């Protein structure tokens, strides 16, 4: 399998996972602390509240794209390459998207971390 195909599959994992992460984070911030919700409504109430959140359902669609891309990538390359590479690049992409879409404070500390992660990913190749 060509390296380009493998890295294309990894890019799809990153796209699906980071979009899903951002949508999921937005959904969970709207829902609030699950432990507190469980104390008030019980487990069925928690499940009902989570599955009634549109952002959560959209996140599941994005994660599905990432999951099937992951299966494909794992059939082509080593887990010790595919899993850390996709997960770490998802971290960087999610940090950028969290700043843009979730208005999280991504300060210089987080950007330095992003550079370290990118160098680490380059070494994984």
């Amino acid at each position, binding site marked *: *399998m060509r390296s380009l*195909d493998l890295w294309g599959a990894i890019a799809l994992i990153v796209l699906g996972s980071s979009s899903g*992460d*951002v949508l*999921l*984070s937005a959904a*969970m*911030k*709207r*829902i*609030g*602390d*699950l*432990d*507190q*919700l469980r104390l008030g409504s019980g487990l069925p109430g928690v499940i009902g509240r*989570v599955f009634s959140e549109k952002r959560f359902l959209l996140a599941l669609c994005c994660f599905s794209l990432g999951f*099937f891309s*992951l*299966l*494909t990538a*794992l*059939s*082509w390359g*080593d*887990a*010790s*390459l*595919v*899993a*850390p590479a996709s*997960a*770490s690049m*998802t*971290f960087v992409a*999610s*940090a950028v998207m*969290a*700043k843009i879409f*979730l*208005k*999280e*404070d*991504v*300060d210089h*500390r*987080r950007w*330095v*971390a*992003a*550079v*370290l*992660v990118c*160098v*680490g*990913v*380059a*070494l*994984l190749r």
Partner: protein
Amino acid sequence: MNYKKYLVLLAVMCFGSTGDALLKRGMNDFGPVDLHHPLHVVAALGNPWVLAGITVLTAFFASYLTALSWADLSYVLPATALGYVGVTLLGRYFLHENVSPMRWLGVLLISCGVGWVTRGPALTVSPSPDTRVHGGEEQHEVA
């Protein structure tokens, strides 16, 4: 942060790396996916290793949801980064993959990066009225 929340982060780490390793074990049995028949990958769901991987990743997802309900996305992701090391160890010792010194160095740099970022604030409190965050005593006002 109380011990329950640390346990949730630990669960995210352990379930994530174990699930990835189980999926890889199943996909080793299944064989390479043909680009001309991409839907063929759905048949992999019948493999017991893949099913075990999905079960473990479901547990990962539940613990991940819980963590995201009380912390920032940009806190949860790095806080669970030791899973990268975990999956490399599983790849080396469970799947018997060759992990070169450069890959170990890459994992080390990634771990340094995420270790560095976790020393910062954990939560951004949004002034938006439709954003409700319950983080307890670990909430931080971020400039």
